[in-house]
């Protein structure tokens, strides 16, 4: 992987989602980093700003919306590009995501093409 490739971070507790992203982004020229919990992603996100961050909402250790709000409090991430991914598809959650500056809200189950298109759109 070229060190200058943009980094895409996925925070989701599902191993299948990790595989879905690996398949979807394999040919996009991005470096994919996946974390299975909000807590485990902090070692990276405390000091690094990815080109694009995908966040799940329902996770065992912390909900993705609360986590995004905490990240926004870090000057490093006040404008980080974020896309929420969730099995929740409620207006209240979409509204909360937009208020926190999420670019998109993708409902699970999403086809790989939706991931590919989102990465292309926001990385370019």
């Amino acid at each position: 992987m070229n060190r200058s490739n943009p980094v895409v971070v996925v925070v989701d507790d599902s191993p299948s989602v990790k595989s879905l992203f690996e398949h979807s982004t394999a040919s996009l020229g991005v470096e994919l980093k996946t974390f299975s919990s909000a807590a485990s992603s902090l070692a990276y996100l405390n000091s690094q700003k990815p080109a694009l961050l995908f966040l799940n909402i329902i996770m065992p250790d912390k909900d993705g919306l609360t986590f995004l709000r905490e990240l926004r409090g870090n000057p490093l991430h006040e404008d980080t590009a974020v896309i929420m991914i969730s099995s929740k598809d409620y207006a209240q959650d979409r509204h909360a995501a937009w208020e926190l500056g999420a670019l998109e809200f993708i409902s699970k189950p999403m086809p790989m093409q939706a991931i590919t298109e989102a990465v292309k759109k926001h990385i370019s």
Partner: protein
Amino acid sequence: MSEAYLRFWGVRGSYSAPFASHLDVGGNTSCVEIRADGHLLVCDAGTGIIPFGQHLMQQDGIREMLVILTHYHWDHVCGLPFFLPAFAEDWRLNFFGPGQNAGEIERHVSAQMRAPYFPVSTDTWHAAVDYLQPPGGNLEHGPFRISYQNVHHPGITYGYRINLNGKVIVYISDNECLFLNKSIEQRYQEFNSEEQRLYDSMKREEYDSALQFMQGADILIHDAQYTPEDYEKKRGWGHSCYIDTVNSAIDAGVGQLYLYHHDPNYDDERINAIHQDCLRIIAERQSALDCHIAREGLTLDLA
């Protein structure tokens, strides 16, 4: 009454249902009292907390409680403006619920008691009131050890797993069981073979994760709001079809299931029919699950 018991003060979902045809089950919205070893834990503060407060004012002894809120939708907090212990100087109330910090929990709890929605604010509460900072691990209150997890309902909504001297009570008032799995099944033919393989394993992960939180509970109090016919019309509203609730309880090895958050449109007869169908499912699956209707006033001995 034994030293340890659980009592249902409100069992309805969405809004109260004070109709004669509904009162065998009960008309008040969510509120459950759990008392043990001189400590008091209250799950949710719907209209059921109003008669509970009146009851508390007539007893001596306990003057402190922890109120754990699943979320802040009205049917879970609307009893608080009329909760008498909050207005009494000799009481201490501790609140916990979804929120980034204690200040946010306080804002959510007090928001409904502001003009023009209510004439007096939480500033008029005379009780000592504390809003708990989200802990790194479990909440503790007397003998209660409480963990919580996000569940499938609009906004941030918690389910609670309560360990009381080795007995496990799981309280999940609002939760749409199997939502993702049904979404996958509906769209399955749109996916290519690799996507189908991944979504098959995602369904297993999702179900296992949901079951893990209720796994082995002695008592599960869970949303069972809709019949299959109504669920089809209200899919995505954040509530479960009772069939999914009872199957999940069986698969999680639960001891006793209490069908909860009853739809306010369902009268006693309809809820009894739901219960009968749950018993049929349990028998068909040859399960030992003990399934009941959560009824207002029903008290369970936890000793």
